[in-house]
C-alpha cells in the first residue's frame, strides 16, 4: 500500500502573529514553524498503518526551501521519503493542483491530509484534490481502518458521528483522535537526514486568488470583575455601560 501524506509548514500554535508593514505577508521573524497539527495526526495514522500493514509513506509539501526542517521532522517520525514542490503555496487551488499532479504520477492508495491548515484554515485542499483525481474525498475523518481494499471510517458530522466505508483510493482530511501524535525517536532523527527528499518544480502556475491585505482581530477588551455580593453594581453596569439590559 502506498500512502501520500500532505503536510503544511505553519507557525507554532503559540506564536504571536504579526504582519509585514504592508499587511500583505506574515512577518516570519522569530517565528517557529511546525508540521500543521491536523497534518501531524494524518501522518501519525499513516505511520501506524505502515507498522500495521507494511505501507510505504511519502511526504509531500508545497513550499520553498525553508520548509525542509519541517519535512525532515516528518521523515524523522518514520516516513520513507519526501517530495517538495518548490513554490510558495500561494492559494488552495494552486496547492491542490500540485498535489494532484504528484498523485497522478504515483498511484497512491491513500492521500492523507489534515482537515484544514492552521494558517489559512481553508479546509478545501482535500476536496479539490479529490475532484481533480476523480476519487472520493472525505473530511474530517476521526477514525480510519483499512481492510483489504476498503477503508472503514468515522466522520464527525453536525450533532453526531457518521460511520462509512469506501474503496481505495481515497483522499482524506484527518483530525484527532485518528491517531496519537508521535514524538520522533532518536533513530528516526538520526536517519532523517539520509532519507530521500526530492525537489520538483511546480507543475502548473495557476494562481486564482491574490491577497489584498490582512487585518488582526481587535484586541480583547478589558474584563471587569465584580464581587458576587455586589449584584447592584453588576446590573448597573449591564444597563448603563454595556447597555444589554
Amino acid at each position, binding site marked *: 500500500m502506498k500512502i501520500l501524506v500532505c503536510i503544511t509548514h505553519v507557525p507554532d500554535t503559540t506564536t*504571536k502573529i504579526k504582519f509585514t508593514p504592508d499587511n500583505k505577508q506574515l512577518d516570519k521573524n*522569530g517565528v517557529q514553524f511546525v508540521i500543521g497539527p491536523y497534518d501531524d495526526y494524518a501522518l501519525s495514522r499513516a505511520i501506524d498503518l505502515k507498522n500495521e500493514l507494511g505501507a510505504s509513506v511519502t511526504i509531500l509539501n508545497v513550499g520553498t526551501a525553508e520548509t525542509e*526542517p519541517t519535512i*525532515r*521532522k516528518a521523515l*524523522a517520525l518514520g516516513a520513507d521519503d519526501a517530495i517538495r514542490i518548490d513554490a510558495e503555496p500561494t492559494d488552495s487551488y494552486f496547492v491542490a493542483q500540485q498535489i494532484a499532479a504528484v498523485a497522478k504520477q504515483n498511484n497512491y492508495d491513500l492521500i492523507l491530509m489534515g482537515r484544514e491548515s492552521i494558517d489559512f484554515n481553508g479546509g478545501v485542499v482535500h476536496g479539490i484534490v479529490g475532484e481533480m483525481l476523480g476519487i472520493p474525498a472525505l473530511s474530517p475523518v476521526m477514525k480510519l481502518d483499512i481492510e483489504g481494499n476498503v477503508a472503514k471510517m468515522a466522520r464527525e458530522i453536525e450533532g453526531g458521528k457518521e460511520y462509512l466505508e469506501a474503496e481505495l483510493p481515497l483522499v482524506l482530511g484527518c483530525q484527532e483522535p485518528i491517531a496519537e*501524535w508521535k*514524538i*520522533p*525517536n*532518536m*533513530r528516526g*532523527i*538520526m536517519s*532523517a*537526514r539520509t532519507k530521500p527528499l526530492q525537489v520538483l518544480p511546480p507543475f502548473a502556475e495557476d494562481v486564482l486568488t491574490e491577497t489584498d491585505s490582512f487585518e488582526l482581530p481587535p484586541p480583547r477588551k478589558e474584563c471587569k470583575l465584580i464581587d458576587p455580593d455586589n449584584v447592584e453594581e453588576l446590573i448597573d453596569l449591564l444597563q448603563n455601560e454595556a447597555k444589554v439590559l
Partner: protein
Amino acid sequence: METVANKNLIKGGEFLIKDVTPEEIFTPEEFTEEQRMLIQACKDFLEKEVYPKVEELDEAKDTSLMVSLLDKAGELGLLGAGVPEEYGGMGMDFNSTMLITEYLGAGHSFAVAFSAHTGIGTLPIQYYGNEEQKKKYLPKLASGEWKAAYCLTEPDSGSDANSGKTKATLSEDGKYYIINGQKMWITNGGFADVYIVFAKIDDDKNLSAFIVEKDFGGITMNPPEKKMGIKGSDTRQIFFNDCKVPVENLLSERENGFKIAVNILNIGRIKLAAAAIGASKAALSHAIRYANERKQFGRPISSFGAIKHKIAESAVKIFASEAATYRAGQNIEDAIKMYKEAGMSDSEAKLESLKQFAIECAMMKVHGSEVLDYVVDEAVQIYGGMGYSAESPVERAYRDARINRIFEGTNEINRLLTVDMILRRAMKGELDVMGPAMAVAKELMAIPDFGAEADTSLFAAELKAVKNFKKAILMVAGAAAQKLGKGLGEEQEIIMNVADMLIETYVTESVLLRVLKMAQKQGEEATALYQDLARVYLYDAVDVIQKAAREAITAFAEGDELRVMLLGLKRFTKLEPFNVKAARRRIADYLIEKNEYAF
C-alpha cells in the same frame, strides 16, 4: 600520550593562561538541524508524558509511574543516546547527549531518575566494563529494559567518598565477592535492576566497584526517603547482607573504584550543569508568562522595573551558563576525537577527555546549580503569594532545584576541587602558570601603561577586562600558594574565593566569545541585545571577582604587599561605566514581548 599532547588541542584549565578566540569555541547557535529536532523531541516528551503527571509522580505510592516513564523514554531511544551503537545505543556525540539532558532537565523528578540511569548508572559499565560486561548490560540499559542505580554514598561517607565501610570478601571457592554494608540516598534504588556498588575488598585502602544485579540476593531496602523536593524520584537506603556477586562482575580492577567514582562524577557534573540550564529556562518562562498576566495597580507586573530586573538578570545568567557549558562540552568532544585518532578506544578517549576537562566540569556544576537556584528563587518572587502556593509550577521548581547544589559533589567540594586541580596541574608543569604569574608580578611593580591606544572593536575592551581578571587570579592564587604553602588547604575561605574568581572569569569569557561569534556571523546590529546580555554578565562578574579577591588578599597579606596587591586588583578590575539598568530593561522588554525565555 605524547603524540596527543603535541597536537594543538585546548587543554583543561588552560583558559586561565590562554586567550581564546571566538573561532575556537563552540556556541549553541551552531547546533545542527538534527540537534534542533532532538531538542524538540525532548520538549515534546515532557509536554506529552511528563508534565501531565508531575503531581501524580510526586505523590505516587509506588514506583510504577516512574518506571513507565523511563520505559517510554527508552522506547524513544533517549536512554541509549550516548551508548555506542554496537551495544544497542545511538552512539550520539557528547554535546547531543548534553542537549538531551538539558531539555529533559526541566522534567522535575523524572529528570533526576533519567540522569541517574543514563549517567552514573550506565556510564561506569560503558567506560570501565570489559567486553562481556558491556555486551551483557549495555543493550538492556540503553533500551530501558533494565534500570540502573549508583551506590556510593553511605551514612558515614558522603563527601569523603573513599571512606566507605561497605566490605567485599572473596568466597571460599573464589567464585564470588560477598558484599556487606549499607548505602544511602540511592536514586532509582527502589526499582533498579542493576546497582553499581562501591565497596572495599578486605582491608584495601581504596574502593572497588561491582556490577550487582537485583536478583543476586541479599539486597533489602528502606521505604523511600521523604524529601524537600524531587519527591517523585525514588531515593532509598539499600542494605547488602551477604550479597553474592560473581567475581566476573568486578568492574575494572581491584581498588580502582574511587577513580571510577571520580571520573564518572566528572561527566555527571557537566551534565548537571546542562540539566540546570534546562530547568532554569523553564522556570523563567513560567515567571515571564505570569508577570505578563498578573496585574496590580492597573498594570501587568512585568511593566515594573523591579520585575524587569529579575527577568533580565535571570536571562543573563542562563545565557552565560549555557555559553560556558557547551563551550566545555565541545572541548570534551574535540578531545575525544583527537584521542581516538591517536589510537585510544572509544571509552578510553572519553575518560581521558573528561579527566582533561574535570576543572571545567566542576566549575560548571557549581555555576549551573547556583544559576538555577537564583532563577527559581526570583521566579517564586515574581509569582508573589502564588509562588508560595503548591499549585504554582514555580513552587515545585524551587524545591526541586535545591538538590543540585548537594549531589554530584557538593558545591563546596567542587570549588575545592577546581582550585586543587589547577594548583596540581601547575605544580606538575602541565599548566604553565609560572610564566604568566611572573609577568603579573612584574606588572604589579611597573608603572601602569596609559599610552596604548584603545582598541575600539566589538568587545575588545571587555575581553581585555577578562584578561585582567585572569591576572587577578594569578596574583591572588600565586601569592596565596606562596605565602601559605601547604597551609592553604586549611584556609578554605581563600580557596572558595579563588574558585569564585575562576568560575566567573571562565563564564564571562565564554559569554563574550559566544556573542562575538554571533556578531561576526550576523552583524553587530542584529546582535545588539546579545551584546547587552554579555555586558551585563561582565558587570555582574566584576563585582564578584573584586569582592572575592579583596577578601582573599586581606586574609593573607599585610602592609606594603597588601597595598600593592589591592592597587593591582583595582587596575585588574577596572571597567568603563556601562548603564546596566538600561541594558537589563532592553533584555526584559524583549522577553516580555516574547512571553518566554527566548535566547
